[in-house]
């Protein structure tokens, strides 16, 4: 398989994730769409690493996984904190920080 197929698939997945972030309003689903975008980036990194024949791209992908895990933990912690304070789980209702 050509590497280009993987890269086009990765950009398609990235666009789907971005669309999801624009459409959905539940913070949980927005986090899921962020995962989609991070994984699309991972796919491109691994594909380029295969194309160049160098394993450093795969190390990059593993570091991206670590960052994604941290983001998930903090995001889900925020969602649980919101739920405990009985705030609505809707990103359009949570706009107190908006200027």
């Amino acid at each position, binding site marked *: *398989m*050509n*590497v*280009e*197929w993987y*890269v*086009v*698939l990765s*950009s398609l*997945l*990235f*666009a*789907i994730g*971005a*669309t*999801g972030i*624009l*459409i959905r*309003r*539940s913070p*949980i*689903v927005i*986090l*899921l769409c962020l*995962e*989609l975008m991070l*994984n699309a980036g*991972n*796919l491109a990194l*691994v594909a380029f*690493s*295969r*194309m*160049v*024949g160098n*394993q*450093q791209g*795969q*190390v990059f*992908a*593993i*570091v991206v*996984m670590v*960052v*994604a*895990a*941290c*983001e*998930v*933990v*903090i995001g*889900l*912690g*925020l969602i*649980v*904190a919101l*739920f*405990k*304070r009985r705030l609505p789980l*809707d990103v359009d209702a949570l706009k107190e920080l908006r200027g």
Partner: protein
Amino acid sequence: MEAVLFFAAALGALGGAIGVVAMRNPFYGVLALIVHLFSLAVLFLLLTAAFVAAAQVVVYAGAVMVLYAFVVAYVGGEEEPSFDPIPGQRFLAPLLGAALFIELSIAVLGSSLTALSTHGPDVSAGFGNPAAIGKLLLERFLLPFEASSILLLLAAVGAVVLAARRDTA
């Protein structure tokens, strides 16, 4: 054989991604994301990234998704209201997504990427296996490795601080 596997995994990944965006119930979204992650692991295997594929299945599809499933079960998978706060958001957003995809494709395919060998060089048998990746992580990328471990520790402490606070408000 490789092409068949690629298209099957690509279809799974696309279906999972569309499911995440389209499912109204967040719990089904989590399940769709698990399908997506497994398909991506197959793609990583096709790209001879065995360790990344294993980490994807064990860490992502295993641990992270269990975390999601627990939080969705705790919060309750309420469906979001269907009115649009911004008029036309539901039609504009897919248009913007399609525009982003077209732009990315032009940027990728129109660049000098095609000048390189598109199949990639032939790699040795140990390419991307745990031994090779571990050697890279512990020699060349030791500092990023340690920094990411500190990041994980900070995230764990932060999650406990955020979620375990008693109700004061």
